[in-house]
């Protein structure tokens, strides 16, 4: 029993590097949806993985929904640019940090476990403000015509 536990613990530690890169998953993808990663743009169909520092971009007909590892749900509407600046979540302690930037467009979100454990661990930046999330469901819009 002890040995089995030790093996399980070692295996789980070994498994972390492989999983760490993926912080979320595209669950809904309509119209033109792309992910910019390391300077390259790729299409983001349902099932595509989302990583910290990805930028999600949609066209005029696009919208996308993402589930994150702490159960946060985030969706973006048409003509949107949303950058994931930081994401980290510890599934044992529920400690974490989620910082995103809405450069333009529309975003809706339902916060997950990390916000429940520590309010305002999720933050959304816009060109002129920072929003701290204390709970659950909210929407943000950044108008493109802003000068």
């Amino acid at each position, binding site marked *: *029993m002890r040995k*089995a*536990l*030790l093996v*399980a*613990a070692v*295996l*789980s530690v070994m498994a972390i590097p492989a*999983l760490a890169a993926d912080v979320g*998953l595209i*669950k*809904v993808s*309509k119209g033109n949806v792309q992910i910019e990663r390391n300077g390259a743009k790729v299409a983001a169909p*349902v*099932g595509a993985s989302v990583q910290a520092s990805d930028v999600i971009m949609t066209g005029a007909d696009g*919208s*996308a*929904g*993402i*589930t994150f*590892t702490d*159960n946060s*749900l*985030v*969706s*973006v*509407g*048409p003509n949107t640019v949303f950058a994931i600046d930081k994401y980290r979540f510890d*599934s*044992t*302690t529920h400690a974490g940090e989620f910082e995103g930037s809405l450069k333009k467009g*529309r*975003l*809706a*979100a*339902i*916060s997950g476990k990390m916000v429940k454990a520590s309010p*305002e661990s999720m933050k959304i930046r*816009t*060109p*002129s*403000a*920072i*929003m*701290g*999330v*204390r*709970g*659950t*469901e*909210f*929407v*943000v*819009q*950044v*108008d493109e*015509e*802003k000068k």
Partner: protein
Amino acid sequence: MNLFAVFLLAVLVASFWRAPEKAPELFAVLPARDGHVGAIVVRGPGSEKVINEAYASVSINGSTQTNGSLSQAQVREMFGSTIEALPGSPASFTLYFLEGKDELTPESRSELDNVFSELKRRPLPDIVVIGHTDTVGSLEFNDKLSLARAERMREMLISLGLPAERIQAAGRGKRELLIQTEENVSEPRNRRVEISVR
């Protein structure tokens, strides 16, 4: 008195209408699917605003921050396709374990089939298995035991045919008791795994 009421109404209407139309940036709180209303804090140019009512909003235009409120129709018009793209809310199932072991109770073992068919119904399941323990033993022992329970459940789901790369396992030890107890209390309802699917 009447005039004052009209004035008040005019001010209210003005604040309701202006916010969504002119503001380049807008933040609003929506009621959750279960009716719960949360809160957000907007730190903008020179001030901080807390919004904690359903459909309440803050808009920022240059250096001006304005409190307002959206109608449900405005939310639909502005955010309809965005909200529609929110992924479905997660579902979760709980199965129970024998004391001190990573073996399911006989009742839970026979329930596993139902859970499995529920999980299989989702086209692209994102499954997280979280193990828990009762308060018998040290924090460290229970962290390991809870992880062993989760890993064991993960293996069972894989052997039943769910894709391995879609299932993650984690242990919470005795940090999240279902039934609050003192230390060193054997409590069957705390010896469990929660299987959540998104």
